[in-house]
């Protein structure tokens, strides 16, 4: 009897091992992509969804070909919370280390939300030779570090827009406002975080001074601020014709409402994250017509002249049941997974150094336009979607739609003054 049970057990074990266990045993080991961003922020949340969308598509199509095998991607995300006020950079560094050392992430995708932490994490990925592609952090310090100490920092790349390119789009908009309406007085309001401070500094230095604008005031607000009346009062008292806001915190929505309720006679033209998505029209009680806002990367808004941006926007909506609301991050998040796939296949290896070398050479057309890294590991943004990646400026229209108004290569309409506001010339 005992012998019978033993034989049956052995046979059963063999049967499970040979047949039942086949798919599991033979399934290729996934390539881990670590995502350590701030999932409590819209850009982080939607960015992760875009990464997952690309991963699902790639895995459905068979995965990534490396070493003669098709291997799937697997995403492990950590809410590193680096964008929240009071969360120290060390927490974000810990999240990166956990992903690399405990979860064995081969690549860091999207990276830290804030530049303050992303720059610190360049040392971490450099130490472990893990390529990292940034999707939200915008400070140009990252590029400086790559150029200064290439050997140590070559593992970091940025797919999203950076502060310098943002300035180019904003500068074009300001030039138009000046030429068309004679505006030349601006009040700057920025969030007190690295990318926004830098954008404000560079706008003063490289744009307004050179263009002969008068900066009638500038104020910085810590993340989490919820009253903007002091700046708006000053802007009005000093005769500002344009208010340049630079904010990515949810509370900046209050600024939009205050701008309307206080009837400040100035165009709002800059970046406020709550103004970027299609739901802003309803959120702000249909009172945002005339506001001009940056969309850091196309694809976050469908752009008819770049079919891949429309394709991505629609795929995202179909998968998650609602459209992209963030003006920054999801489209580069989606594209960076495909970039990585291309680079891994080109390198035919998961070795950090080899993939870095491949990433430097890779080129593709994605949701954000034509993607190619510069020597400083920043994707090149410009005004021709056939040659570069693209950002754009949109203006809210009276019917609640967003229309691209800059750059001219993508523009669907011209900038119009908000109701009640008169040109200066």
């Amino acid at each position, binding site marked *: 009897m005992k012998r019978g049970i033993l034989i049956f057990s052995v046979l059963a074990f063999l049967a499970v091992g040979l047949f039942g266990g086949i798919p599991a045993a033979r399934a290729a080991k996934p390539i881990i992509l670590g995502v350590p961003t701030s999932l409590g922020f819209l850009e982080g949340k939607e960015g992760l969804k875009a990464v997952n969308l690309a991963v699902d598509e790639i895995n459905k199509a068979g995965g990534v070909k490396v070493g003669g095998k098709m291997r799937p991607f697997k995403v492990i995300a950590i809410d590193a919370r680096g964008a929240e006020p009071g969360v120290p950079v060390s927490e974000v560094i810990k999240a990166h280390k956990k992903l690399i050392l405990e979860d064995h992430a081969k690549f860091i995708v999207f990276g830290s939300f804030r530049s303050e932490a992303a720059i610190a994490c360049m040392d971490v990925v450099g130490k472990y030779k893990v390529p990292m592609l940034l999707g939200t952090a915008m400070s140009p310090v990252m590029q400086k570090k790559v150029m200064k100490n290439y050997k140590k920092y070559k593992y970091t790349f940025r797919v999203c827009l950076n502060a310098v390119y943002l300035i180019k789009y904003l500068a074009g908009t300001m030039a138009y406002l000046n030429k068309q309406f004679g505006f030349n007085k601006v009040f700057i309001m920025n969030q007190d975080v690295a990318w926004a401070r830098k954008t404000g500094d560079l706008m003063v230095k490289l744009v307004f001074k050179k263009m002969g604008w008068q900066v009638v005031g500038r104020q910085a607000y810590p993340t989490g601020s919820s009253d903007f009346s002091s700046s708006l009062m000053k802007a009005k008292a000093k005769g500002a014709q344009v208010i340049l806001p630079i904010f990515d915190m949810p509370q900046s929505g209050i600024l939009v409402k205050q701008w309307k309720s206080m*009837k400040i006679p100035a165009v709002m033209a800059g970046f406020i994250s709550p103004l970027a998505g299609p739901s802003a029209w309803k959120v702000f009680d249909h009172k945002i017509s005339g506001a001009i806002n940056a969309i850091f990367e196309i694809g976050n808004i469908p752009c008819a002249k770049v079919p891949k941006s429309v394709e991505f926007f629609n795929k995202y909506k179909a998968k998650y049941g609602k459209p992209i609301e963030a003006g920054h991050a999801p489209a580069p998040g989606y594209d960076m997974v495909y970039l990585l796939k291309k680079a891994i296949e080109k390198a035919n290896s998961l070795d950090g150094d080899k993939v870095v070398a491949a990433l430097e050479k890779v080129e593709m057309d994605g949701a954000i336009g034509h993607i190619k890294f510069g020597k400083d590991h920043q994707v090149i943004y410009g005004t021709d979607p056939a040659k570069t990646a693209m950002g754009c400026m949109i203006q809210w229209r009276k019917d609640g739609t967003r229309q691209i108004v800059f750059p001219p290569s993508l523009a669907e309409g011209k900038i119009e003054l908000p109701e009640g506001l008169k040109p200066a010339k």
Partner: protein
Amino acid sequence: MFAAILIYGFINSSILALVAMGFNLTFGISGVANFAYGAIYIFAGFLVWIFLNTLGVNYFLSIILAFISSYLLGYLMYRFIILRVRGLPLSEVMATFGLGLAIMELFRYLDFVGVKYSLPVFIDGSVSIGGHFIDYQRLLIGVVAVALTVIFYFFTHYTKMGLAFRAIAQDDETALTLGIDPDRIGAFSLALGSSLAALAAVIILPLGTISVENGYEVLINALAVCIVGGLGSTVGVIVASILVGYSQTLTANYIEPHWMILVSLAAIAVVLVVKPSGIFGKQKELEERV
């Protein structure tokens, strides 16, 4: 410009007073810790949003339902959490703070992230006062803050229930000998304080959008006002709201908005060093002397 500072300083002070009123009622007047106060504030905001946008309930009815839910949440919090650690102030603080964190993180987990969470204003439009436009919603905040202050002053000084609230803060056992059931009053105090957090939420949140971070901000502001004014003093709450509110507005206008957040924290530090019981905190001052 000065007129504008006066107007917006008043509104800022009113917002602080509204936010602090419920916290002062429970922690200050009845001595029951409610460090989940900020979480209840956003709980009410999100609840109104859900009733209004997901379930299609009328706005006014949504607000009433949020009040009732917040009241029940406060009551249940007392019955199932506070009651077990009553009399251990540190445990009360930690238990309620933990619950608050759990509520806030639950909303984050449930994907309440983004800019679409916004409540409509009660009355649309704005009015010009001395050449400065101010919206009706902000004016309403000022009116409600003043009205609530008056009501609360009379409630805590001239009604049986209000006096019972103060009695249990002074001494549970003595209150019991006078026929006051400390647990019943404590539960009612927490429930009422929670519905006041809901009231503050539905009036203040239409100014912007609802986000989980609002909860932390509200708790810090409520703490700052109550510590500066003196825990348990309605007059103290008003004076502290005016002091902190105008200090913040003046700082934003004459120094930098960047330093605004430091005003509340600096006020807490200064008051704790100079007069730990707060400007009007008589009860605590007496306790300290004893």
